[in-house]
């Protein structure tokens, strides 16, 4: 079996988790004798191509036939947006992308006059036009390559998937890592929503990363239930470092929130719960690691509650600092209001940190050794934090069983299910 897969990024050139997820999945699929042609807008040449054939869209000649598809895409051409529209991406990175000047010099000349397109492969302000051009290349690729199934990851590549399907007539599977509702709450970007819905309608099967997301696809996009299948993400810890210097400078126990400080991640519930815990149990410190549009509000709230001496903000963390933060933590909290999957609790568990996650997260569907609360239930959240800090048996129970649990969430299993989906559309 051969799969034509459309992604937007591939390690090591990633800005978020989408590339990592695609990488894990393709590695898993390749193990089962499935060939993958993975298309990204721009290849840098140092990607890990051990298990796949990586194709850079910018190296593809656009053939005449696909040029005619231009008409089809007219209604979404040149939509310029600059909101945070990709899954897993952190705001700092995004801001950097927007700010960098080389982005502005992206090749923007009309694509009808050229035979090759240039891509940045980033999430810049010209994203929409890149998405469109990417789709046209996809059509070319589809006509020139031999394959059985088309697989497109997230809305950026849906147009490419649709184009490839129209040219080749092969079945299309789209993979929903996040929806516009996860990214923007109720203030959806209409053009993104339209692309998403069109992709879902044209697709033969839809894979969602959780039942939580599946539900959104069914109810918010009006897709028939039997067309949507959940395949939970795996996680790959092959690069995990265990020898982290975790000597802490404080005596108190540490409770950590790590993620974007945005509405969707529920940082405000973390602050309120912290307040309740500190009032009763002073021997604890809370840390909010990350940044985002709600950060200032959170800092003000913490000051107003008078708990600033126990509540710390680290700003955005990455790389080694993230691991360090986990190593210093006694409890990890992810109170997300809406989370298609959520990898970070798995990383925490891997670092032997007990976790509390919201029931409104996809990852809560696969974890047993974690406390699950409704994100709005501040009392329950505070109580769980207190319980983990004070009742050692519970924390030890999670530490003991959590490692095994996350280590068993393998991409291999996810890959098998994805292949089943392929077979169902062939």
């Amino acid at each position, binding site marked *: 079996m051969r799969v034509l897969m459309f992604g937007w990024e591939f390690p090591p050139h990633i800005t978020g988790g989408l590339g990592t997820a695609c990488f894990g999945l393709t590695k898993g699929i390749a193990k089962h004798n499935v060939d993958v042609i993975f298309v990204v807008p721009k290849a840098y040449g140092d990607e890990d191509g051990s298990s796949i054939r990586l194709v850079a869209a910018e190296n593809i000649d656009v053939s005449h036939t696909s040029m005619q598809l231009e008409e089809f895409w007219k209604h979404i051409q040149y939509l310029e947006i600059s909101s945070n529209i990709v899954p897993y991406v952190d705001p700092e990175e995004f801001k950097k992308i927007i700010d960098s000047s080389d982005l502005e010099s992206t090749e923007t000349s009309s694509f009808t006059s050229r035979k090759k397109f240039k891509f940045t492969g980033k999430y810049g302000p010209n994203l929409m036009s890149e998405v469109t051009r990417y789709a046209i290349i996809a059509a070319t690729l589809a006509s020139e390559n031999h394959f059985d199934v088309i697989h497109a990851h997230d809305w950026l590549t849906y147009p490419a998937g649709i184009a490839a399907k129209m040219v080749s007539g092969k079945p299309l599977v789209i993979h929903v890592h996040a929806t516009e509702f996860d990214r923007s709450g109720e203030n959806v970007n209409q053009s993104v929503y339209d692309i998403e819905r069109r992709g879902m309608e044209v697709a033969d099967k839809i894979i969602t990363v959780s039942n939580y997301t599946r539900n959104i696809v069914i109810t918010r996009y009006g897709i028939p239930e039997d067309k949507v299948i959940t395949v939970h993400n795996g996680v790959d810890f092959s690069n995990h470092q265990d020898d982290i210097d975790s000597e802490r400078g404080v005596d108190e126990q540490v409770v950590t929130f790590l993620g974007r400080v945005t509405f969707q991640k529920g940082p405000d519930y973390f602050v309120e719960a912290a307040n*309740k*815990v500190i*009032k*009763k*149990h*002073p021997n604890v410190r809370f840390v909010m690691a990350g940044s985002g549009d709600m950060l200032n509000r959170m800092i003000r709230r913490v000051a107003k509650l008078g708990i600033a001496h126990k509540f710390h903000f680290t700003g955005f963390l990455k790389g080694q600092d993230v691991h360090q933060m986990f190593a210093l933590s006694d409890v990890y909290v992810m109170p997300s209001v809406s989370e298609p999957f959520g990898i970070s609790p798995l990383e925490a568990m891997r670092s032997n940190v007990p976790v509390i996650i919201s029931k409104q997260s996809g990852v809560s569907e696969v974890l*047993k050794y974690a*406390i*699950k609360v409704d994100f709005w239930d501040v*009392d*329950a959240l*505070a*109580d*769980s934090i*207190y*319980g983990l800090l*004070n*009742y*050692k*048996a*519970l924390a*030890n*129970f999670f530490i*003991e069983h959590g490692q095994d649990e996350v280590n068993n969430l393998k991409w291999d299993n996810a890959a098998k299910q994805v292949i089943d989906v392929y077979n169902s559309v062939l």
Partner: protein
Amino acid sequence: MKTICFYFQVHQPYRLRRYRFFDIGKNHNYFDDFANRSIMRKVAEKCYLPTNKLMLDLINEYGYRFKISYSISGTALDQFEQYAPDVLDSFRKLAETGCVEFLAETHSHSLSALKNKDEFYRQIESQTKRLEELVGYKPKTFRNTELIYSDEIGAMVADLGYKAMLTEGAKHILGWKSSNFLYANAINPKLKLLLKNFRLSDDIAFRFSNRDWSEWPLTTEKFVHWLNNIDPKEEIVNLFMDYETFGEHQWAETGIFDFMRALPGRVFSSSNFEFLTPSEAADKHQPIALLHVPYPISWADEERDLTAWLGNELQDEAFNHLYSLSDKIDKLNDADLKRDWLYLQTSDHFYYMCTKWFSDGDVHKYFNPYDSPYEAFINFMNVLSDFTIRLKSKILELNYFANTKVDMEEIDILIQLYKQKMLELVKIKGGEIINGNGNGFAKNAEEVSEVKKTKPKTGTKTKQSKKLTSEKPKVVSKEKTTSVKVSASKVKSIKAKSGTETTKPKAPKTVKKTSTSKVESKSKATKGVVKKSASKTKKAK
């Protein structure tokens, strides 16, 4: 003639309410009265009342030929008295027929047999007393919580003078042997054992309405046919099940009541079986062998062991913590504490913490008021934390008045305790002192104590705490109410003072900090803060 022995388990736990950690030390009401009442009423209407009536009808119809037995836990008896006296009446009527035996068990349906012999005995005594009081029956046969049994437990029961005991016919214990005989305890052979025939019992209790079961639907014809099919030498079939099987686990619509109504008639007409109560059965038949049970068995799950209640880290921790308090409980004679201690021992609390149902069946989930075993654990531990605090302070009080040695740390606990009590009392008294606001009062109360402390400036930590000890008795020895009055009047005077002195908002704030942290611990930090606050107040001046 062969024997059928029916025994029905009647049990309801006192379920805990959602007890958050911020309730610890403040709220001592642990039980969910609403849930307990409504569940009791629901089960009474669906099961206890209609089934008791059915049994009474059957007894009236067949005279002395139809006999059954019940084991009613003490917590169920207590709840009947509270919420469903009509059910008690119907049990009393059943007792009056003389065809019904009631069994002894532990009062709170507890696992005390595994941990504490004294408590085990105490609970049996209390349950049998309650049973006599409420139902008018003095039990002669024993049944332990969840049919938990081992050689040692059997021997303990025999020592109390019971002649017979019920337990599970667990496969891993019996091996090739049959449950359809009487056996005897391996340590004290005087104790006869009736073993549950789990296949025939569970056919009724669990499989009756299961349409995937190859034998569905179960008819009395079929069931009596199975009874007739047992080995001709075998003597007794023990049908043990939860009473809630009728109408609650198996709804009335499944036909379970019709089945039961028709069963005795069918047994009499087409089999060589009679109905006997457990003590009658134990008198009639002779044990054929000793039963060796070195490790405890139960009637739960596939494993028939203790893993539904004990075994995972959470259950063990909660269980051990609970029973680590038993020495202290023994010293006390406080009705409230004793009652809570009893109800906290109910095995259901540990059942809710079971993590086995992650992999197998959802039986556990069905009876569970919690979303997860973790919630169950945290909730129970929160309650237990508060209970421990109450218990310790009670003991301290006792020791204090008995002039026994009390160490410094304990004094701190006492101080906090009395502060809390004062707050409560002030609250009760109403808002005239300080807007009825507890926090406001706390602040002022602490200021009061702070004023006292700061007068003899600094000194070492030990001196300070000594000062506390010497100061405290004055308050303690007086009546609680008077102590409140004293402090209240002081509060007033303080208030008046601060009113005239055109305020220095910084000073009282820092003062508050020092006092709270001092009470919490005698860490190095305290010293620092004390110094700081002192310097700050200077600056303010």
